[in-house]
């Protein structure tokens, strides 16, 4: 089984973060054209988490994501062309236009269909991990979720079951502080999410979500423990969403969160920090590669046909 690289690969992380950023910015740029005819939840500002976490995974490891899933999909090795075609609602999209932005899926890289119902894939991830355990598989499951998911009762039911059955799974809680425009402190009483998780006997830690390297370190350690037979683990990573909850705009003028928070997050943006650790040539080469691949993906999407009506009833039943 292909394990993740044994040490942090700056260039790979930079490449992934650049690809994610460039993709999200391109979506924002062309959104007014209405070519992407669906809601988009962009990950600008949160790229370091996906890049750091997914480079610590093996190809056989399985990722469950959510509607804010572009970053996870790209970092897990999803196909950029078919993702863009999917965003365009084209037949050459990975789900023939049935999924769109919120339900990215690519079983070839073990990326499960993302869900747009908050917290709902968490129990599915636990069930998948249970199945792998029953099968004696070496693969492990990683479940990305927002801090808002922990508002839901089913989230804690799922953690309880995972802990009860000692199921090897890693929960990565991406805490960007807000669920839409609602602050975490306005929704949650009591202890923090990792502290609550630990009361189930789940080892829960924190990592710096602004650094792919830090996330990579925490996730590699967790994956090694899971492969050694550890039960469920959680890592909460702090992060900041630069753009609006949904759609392409900057929502700071709306006033629910201060501009200074955005500036603070931008000041520790991982992309320039990674670039600073690399040769200028490598940076230039990767930037060019990312631009080429993005252009190719757009061209692929543009060239694709829309599905014909016969696709409507396809795969309604298995």
């Amino acid at each position, binding site marked *: 089984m292909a394990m993740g690289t044994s040490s942090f690969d700056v260039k790979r992380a930079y490449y992934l973060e650049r690809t994610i950023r460039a993709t999200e910015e391109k979506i924002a740029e062309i959104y007014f054209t209405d070519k992407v005819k669906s809601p988009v939840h962009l990950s600008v500002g949160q790229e370091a988490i996906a890049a750091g976490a997914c480079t610590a995974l093996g190809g056989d490891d*399985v990722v469950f994501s959510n509607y804010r899933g572009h970053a996870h999909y790209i970092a897990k090795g999803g196909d950029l062309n078919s993702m863009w075609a999917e965003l365009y609602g084209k037949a050459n999209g*990975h*789900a*023939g236009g*049935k*999924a769109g932005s919120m*339900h990215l*899926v*690519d*079983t070839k890289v073990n990326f*499960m*269909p993302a*869900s747009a*119902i908050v917290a*709902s*894939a*968490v*129990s*599915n*991830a*636990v*069930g*998948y*991990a*249970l*199945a*792998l355990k*029953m*099968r004696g598989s070496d693969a492990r499951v990683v479940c990305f979720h927002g801090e808002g998911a922990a508002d839901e*009762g*089913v989230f804690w*039911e*799922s953690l*309880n*079951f995972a802990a*009860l059955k000692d199921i090897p799974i890693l929960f990565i809680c991406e805490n960007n502080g807000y669920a839409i425009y609602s602050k975490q402190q306005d929704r949650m009483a009591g202890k923090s999410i990792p502290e609550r998780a630990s009361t189930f006997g789940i080892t829960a830690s924190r990592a710096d979500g602004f650094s792919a390297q830090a996330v990579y370190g925490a996730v590699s350690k967790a994956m090694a423990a899971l492969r050694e037979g550890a039960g469920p683990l959680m890592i909460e990573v702090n992060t900041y969403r630069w753009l609006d909850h949904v759609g392409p705009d900057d929502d700071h003028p709306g006033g629910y969160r201060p501009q200074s928070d955005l500036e603070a997050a931008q000041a520790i943006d991982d992309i320039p920090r990674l670039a600073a650790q690399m040769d200028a040539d490598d940076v230039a080469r990767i930037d060019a590669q990312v631009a080429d691949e993005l252009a190719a993906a757009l061209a692929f999407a543009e060239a694709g046909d829309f599905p014909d009506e016969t696709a409507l009833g*396809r*795969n*309604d*039943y*298995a």
Partner: protein
Amino acid sequence: MPNDRILSYGDALHEALHQEMALDDSVFVLGQGVDDLKGQYGSTLDLHKEYGPDRNFDVPIAEEAITGVAIGAALAGMRPVNVHQRMDFLMVCMNQLVNMAAKYHYMSDGQVRVPMVVRASIGRSWGQGPQHSQAAYPFFMHVPGFRVLAPTTPHDAKGGLIAAIRDNNPVIFIEHRLLYANTGVVPEDPFEIELGKARILRKGKDITLVGVSYTVTDCLRAAGLLALMGIDAEVIDLLSLAPLDSETVLKSAQKTGHLVVVDNTWTLCGAGAEILARLQEDASGIKVKAARMGYAPTACPTTRCLEDAYYPGPVSVAQKAAVLMGADAGDVPTDVERTELEEFKGPF
């Protein structure tokens, strides 16, 4: 092998699970109480002793997460059978069922599938009241992606459960509490019934009575009462609610010219409503006099006298049929035995 072995409905379900678990190690059972001393009316009794505690296990009282766990395991290629003591409890997991189980295959355009069975028991017995008696099958009939099966006979309980387990879609499998003790001929070897097919249980030429799960029993008894009046009823066990085999029903109704559909739930948006709509849309031009019945449009009362008014029964079905045939409801005999109902004493 002679095909005349008699088994109860509960034992038929047990045999189906037993055989499928032996044949396929991806089949496992999870649900509240499945490994306890009662084993869901005997249907899951001691399966963990045979196949290990990880293939027939009790779960926390967390229906949404457990449904989600079953879905996740199915995504990974397992064939979970998730057992619920009452269908009312499915209301707690509608999100997982409707938004996840029924969507994964379609929204991934076939990249993943969810081969799982959700078993749920329904129905009156005595005093189950408004929260322990509901048969919520129309909710699931409404949503593309599910198969919905409600077997009445022990034969179909076994063949239906095996077919449900082997099917690659989420199957809602409905079992009426008063049917578990019913006995009938059940072949010993594993077999599947065809999903999506209704079953004609009694041939007749004057009127078609269609039942769902336990109301099939009402229809059969009503047919007996009608026979005393010289009315020859055909009785159809709908068996599969999704897909709905309206073809078999319409063919029979067009032959007899009269149709009564007896839902095992409220009539609004029920199987009867759908069948009558399809009858209306039918292009054959054959005229059929049709009616539907079901629970009274209230919550289910607990006390027996009101329960009797709430549920359809052999007499009310026969009366409806008689009136449709132009006979007098007052002429319908009211002497009918329902031992399973009279003998039921709970406590569950």
